[in-house]
């Protein structure tokens, strides 16, 4: 009793969990270091490469880490929005591809158009295409009662193979040789910010994250989305919410955000459409969104975390020669450590037990 009161006064409710969280991260670092050392790599150098690869200089941070984070922010927002509405959209990957196709198509089809028209046009097309790609899951959900988890997974595979066909067929570069499209018109590319590779897609993603956060929190629409996600039954019984409409809207908008991610990726980074355009952004996005607790602003941090991890891991390959397979294993370890730390913290703060 007394100890309890004392501890509460000293605020040590934070200290225990913080320590546990730190221990989790430290354990992961030690484990990774031990593994690397065993395999004959320099663990300290690897750690340094990891950090400097992500943060080494402002230019590096902007050109690599933030560029990597951008599609994860947009797809992370897509997933967060859908999950908030109780829509299990696992299909951000496919929707991203749909968006990329549309953006590239616009960027190629109107070479003479001015930038103020072409770029927004391409981005809008990307968003619309991403939204349209959800229509099959939406239709099956509403008409046949098929859950979206399976349909969106299947549509991802369909998207990937369709893109493969497009770059071998209708959208193939004019020479008809390689499986890729021609680069899009300059007017369809996102402007660069500063001297590095950072493009305007990043601030757009940040603004969208803020906007989505604000809308979810303050707008009637956002409230309806949250209510339907938290309890569709209670929302319906309140008599003020059309759950079907809310679900439909959130699904489409989620698809649009993911589509925009694809558009931004081609307009800001690759400039052409390729097979394997996405290294699984749409799947990583699920982890991003959940790590962020489905909070759009926290999605920025979670996406940044993955951006840092991947940028740093690539540097570990280049500078220390740690093979890519190690990199995946270490990424997994870091994710687990962060999750564990997060659990310790929350558990501690919420108070033990709790029914």
């Amino acid at each position, binding site marked *: 009793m007394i100890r309890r009161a004392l501890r509460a006064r000293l605020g040590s409710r934070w200290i225990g969990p913080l320590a546990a969280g730190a221990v989790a991260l430290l354990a992961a670092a030690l484990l990774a270091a031990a*593994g690397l050392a065993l*395999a004959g790599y320099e663990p300290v150098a690897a750690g340094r490469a990891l950090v400097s690869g992500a943060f080494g200089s402002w230019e590096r941070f902007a050109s690599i880490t933030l560029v990597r984070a951008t599609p994860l922010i947009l797809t992370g927002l897509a997933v967060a929005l859908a999950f908030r509405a109780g829509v299990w959209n696992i299909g951000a990957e496919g929707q991203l591809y749909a968006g990329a196709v549309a953006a590239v198509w616009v960027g190629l089809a109107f070479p003479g158009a001015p930038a103020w028209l072409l770029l927004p046009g391409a981005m809008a097309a990307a968003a619309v295409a991403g939204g349209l790609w959800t229509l*099959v899951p939406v239709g*099956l959900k509403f*008409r*046949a*009662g*098929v*859950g979206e*988890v*399976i*349909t969106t*997974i*299947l*549509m991802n*595979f*369909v998207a990937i*193979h*369709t893109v*493969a*066909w497009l770059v*071998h*067929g209708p959208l193939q570069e004019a020479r008809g040789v390689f499986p890729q499209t021609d680069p899009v018109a300059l007017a369809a590319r996102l402007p660069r910010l500063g001297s590095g590779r950072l493009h305007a897609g990043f601030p757009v993603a940040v603004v969208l994250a803020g906007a989505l956060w604000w809308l979810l929190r303050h707008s009637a629409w956002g409230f309806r989305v949250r209510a339907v996600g938290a309890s569709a039954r209670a929302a319906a019984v309140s008599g003020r919410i059309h759950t079907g409409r809310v679900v439909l809207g959130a699904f489409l908008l989620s698809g649009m955000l993911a589509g925009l991610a694809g558009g931004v990726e081609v307009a800001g980074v690759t400039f052409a459409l390729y097979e394997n355009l996405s290294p699984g952004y749409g*799947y*990583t996005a*699920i*982890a991003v969104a*959940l*790590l962020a*607790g489905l909070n759009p602003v926290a999605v920025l941090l979670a996406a940044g975390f993955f951006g840092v991890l991947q940028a740093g891991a690539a540097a570990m390959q280049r500078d220390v020669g740690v*093979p*890519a*397979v*190690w*990199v*995946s*294993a*270490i*990424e*997994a*370890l870091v*994710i*687990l450590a962060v*999750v*564990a730390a*997060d*659990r*310790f913290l*929350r*558990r501690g703060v*919420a*108070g033990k037990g*709790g*029914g």
Partner: protein
Amino acid sequence: MDAAALQAFLEASVRLGAPLALAALGETISERAGVINIGLEGSIIGGALGGALGALLTGSPGAGVLAGAAAGTAIAGVFALFAIGLNADQIIVGTAATLGGLGITGVVYQSVFGATGTALTLPTLPALPLPGLSALPAVGPALFSQAWTTYLAYLLAPALWYYLFRTRWGLELRAVGEEPGAADAAGIRVRRTRVLAVLGAGFLAGIAGAHLALAHAGTFAEGMSAGRGFIAIAVVVLGRWNPLLVLLASLFFGAASALQFELQAVFANVPYQLLLAFPYLLTLAALAGWIGRSRAPAALARPWPPRSGE
């Protein structure tokens, strides 16, 4: 299609469907207990490498299957530790398990066989024709002249069905997946049930991986699971969390994939990329025509005990 072609097509369907079935049956149990393990892919690839190494070391593919099962279980164990032990989010931990499984198997493979890998030829699981049954026309050789791991899938489906719907343990497991609170109130050990279900799923996913390496490919290659873990999760939904239907759904997906290869041979001028999309489109069409709604276990992906304040 003539008889020989039909038979070959059926054989391919079963070959492609069997590993899916093994993994999906395990996932069915796990999901029925309320745990979605998208780290299944990690257990499959772990099983493939475990199977390969086990078979190489002992020279016996049977021992390889056991080693594969152990590897799959180990990866599922890490998942269980975080997702159930620490109550962390199942999807995030599953993502890490997939990433980690692919990474660790690569690390082990490269430590054993060198950075540039090796052309591995493994002792394979022989086909065991079942006397009598394998002589049936067309379906006989396809269904009943396979490696024993395939028969394991056949046997598991009804066994798991019986377990789920006819035994006390199965009832308790379903209760844990539907209403962990109610299950707890009834004195059922929710976490223990979930951990066991996840480990069982990892065990079967490991066998699925070992089957890929030892009964299907005769080799190990990095990333050879090629997304089958995710397909298996979709197959569980297609099979409505019912082991018998899950087996059928796996074979259905196997058949759709096998048909795709036949179609490439027949329609040489249809772009092959579109044919590759065919199994997925066919599955979507099947779902559209699949009458009636199916419902996931109510507590799927919900941690227990519920996190307060979230």
